[in-house]
């Protein structure tokens, strides 16, 4: 028994007792389902075999440099925000062999790597994350060159999105206009409705694929009260956000403040550990490594994630262009919030807050922007401040 005949924009109710059928429908269609699960005291993304793999009854408490898992009083399936993983690890692989080569009598022969097409379903994607995926789609599929590895994994991707029922401690998607409400690029979007009386999900159909998946899943029609409640949940989430990013004129603000003393200030705190670049769902930098085996007969080219915070990221003959941590932090933040706009037409930031949570010293990107904005005409670090009074 399922729900055939649905179309894009239709909304139905899926009861908690039938939730496993949603997962089963994806499995039956040959999808590898990937979604949130608890591991090592954090909610990460990994393969889901059943609903029980979800972080049922868990929530997270996040702040600058702080992440804790806590038990909720209820059995919500999606009662948390985002963790250290983002979906990019499945589309833009952290480690990838590009090709291998064999030495021959008079040279060498290259064997390209065949990119196996994947059929994945991302289960529980938040609005900020949908924006992040779209941002990486732009980088890898819509510029002059297309990445075949990304394409092979992106082409058959099924997106089961979730509207956030609570704002995370470091979230600011509302001010980045990337959430919390899921608005596009999804196959199905779920809003979890949980109170004393019921546990159900408002499901919005986004595409024909989404409709097809629900064919095997028993749902019923929604009531207007349920629609209202779902909307209220999302509105409450938006109102809970504890921080905002003022994006007014942000590109020119950062471009013209290259020498602002705040950069020295953040550099004194930043460890250049690169955590922010690892957890950020849009950071995409990689390095290419050409290796050879001990005999020297076989060579391989590998691609792996890299971070602009490493000292040799910008190395050219004569030394690294960005030798100081100040230069590197400035590069990361300016790229994310300003240069990205020139390069790809949107901000690189989706307001997920991960960089704030996972920074060991709690550097808050929204605070840094605000500091620069407020003190734009501050005197230089060496100036005698008393002269201004």
């Amino acid at each position: 028994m399922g729900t055939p005949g649905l179309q894009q924009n239709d909304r139905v109710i899926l009861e908690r007792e039938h939730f496993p059928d949603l997962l089963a429908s994806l499995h039956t269609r040959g999808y590898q389902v990937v979604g949130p699960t608890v591991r090592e005291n954090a909610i990460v993304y990994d393969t889901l075999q059943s609903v029980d793999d979800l972080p049922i009854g868990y929530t997270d408490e996040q702040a600058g440099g702080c992440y804790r898992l806590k038990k909720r009083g209820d059995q919500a399936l999606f009662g948390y925000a985002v963790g250290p993983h983002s979906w990019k690890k499945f589309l833009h692989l952290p480690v990838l062999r590009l090709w291998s080569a064999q030495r021959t009598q008079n040279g060498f022969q290259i064997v390209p790597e065949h990119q196996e097409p994947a059929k994945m379903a991302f289960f529980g994607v938040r609005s900020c994350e949908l924006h992040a995926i779209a941002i990486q789609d732009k980088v890898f599929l819509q510029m002059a060159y297309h990445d075949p590895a990304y394409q092979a994994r992106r082409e058959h991707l099924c997106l089961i999105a979730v509207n956030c029922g609570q704002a995370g401690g470091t979230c600011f998607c509302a001010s980045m206009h990337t959430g919390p409400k899921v608005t596009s690029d999804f196959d199905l979007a779920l809003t979890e409705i949980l109170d004393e009386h019921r546990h159900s999900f408002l499901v919005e159909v986004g595409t024909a694929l989404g409709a097809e998946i629900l064919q095997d899943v028993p749902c019923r029609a929604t009531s207007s009260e349920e629609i209202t409640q779902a909307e209220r949940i999302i509105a409450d989430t938006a109102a809970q956000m504890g921080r905002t990013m003022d994006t007014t004129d942000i590109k020119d603000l950062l471009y013209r403040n290259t020498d602002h003393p705040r950069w020295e200030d953040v550099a004194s705190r930043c460890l250049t550990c690169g955590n922010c670049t690892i957890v950020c769902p849009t950071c995409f930098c990689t390095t290419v490594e050409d290796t050879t085996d001990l005999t020297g007969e076989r060579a391989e080219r590998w691609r792996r994630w890299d971070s602009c915070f490493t000292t040799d990221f910008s190395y050219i003959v004569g030394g690294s262009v960005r030798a100081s941590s100040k230069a590197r932090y400035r590069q990361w933040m300016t790229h994310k919030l300003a240069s990205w706009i020139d390069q790809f037409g949107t901000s690189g930031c989706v307001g997920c807050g991960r960089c704030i949570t996972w920074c060991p010293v709690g550097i808050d990107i929204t605070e840094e922007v605000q500091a620069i904005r407020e003190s734009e005409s501050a005197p230089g670090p060496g100036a005698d401040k008393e002269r201004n009074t």
Partner: protein
Amino acid sequence: MSMTFSDPMVPRPYRIRRVRHEILDTFTLELEPEDGGEIPPFATGQFNMLYVFGVGEIPISISGDPANPAFLLHTTRAVGTVSRAMQALKQGDMLGVRGPFGSHWPIEQAKGLDVIIAAGGIGLAPLRSAVYQILASREQYGQVTLLYGARTPADILYRHELERWRGRLDLDVFVTVDRAESSWRGSVGVVTKLIPRATFDPGKAVAFVCGPEIMMRFTAAGLAARGIPADQISVSMERNMKCALGFCGHCQYRPYFICRDGPVFQYAHVQQLLTKEGI
């Protein structure tokens, strides 16, 4: 141009036809495709990624003649792991080539105008292609001047070619070195000192500048001070490069990816950035 039909990270095998030792640690490789096929057409100022088996891959500007497509020429210095390994290669050895990539010297916009080509050190390598292209249709341009600065007389690149060019009546060549022994008969001083020697109408001139970043910064500023508009001056920037496709992120220069928005830029677009440290 969208390249989805083949993997742009896979090099194409080329064979070394000739290795020419230039000066000191500088050498030129002459390459031809192993499969006997065509060398992809290139525009002057562009670069290829050259791969040495098992060692690595580096970006090197093309310094040959775009109108002579039989061979690919690359001049480089042995200063890093890959370039040193490249220097040890011999005639008949195989290299991997990807490209051409990047923007080019705006030679077509120089038609009917005076052209100043200002090179410093090995910066003459990417500009040599531009000189070839201009000389091939010499009548299409106004006054053409080549300014070249090197560290010492022993560091002058393509010396025989420079002497041949200087012998032409339709090309002014001025060479200077930073220091010299007393037997040197040429100019001594920074390359910016050569600018007043060039004959050009600033309102109807273009300039191509290539060399160490600081040399380009002062030379472009010196040319602009003579009245050449900043959008008529081009420079060739350099940054760490891993993929040349706009994916690895290493070659970023604030809003630009040097592998695709550069390496050739209008001076007007990078003028402010050139004065900043750590960009």
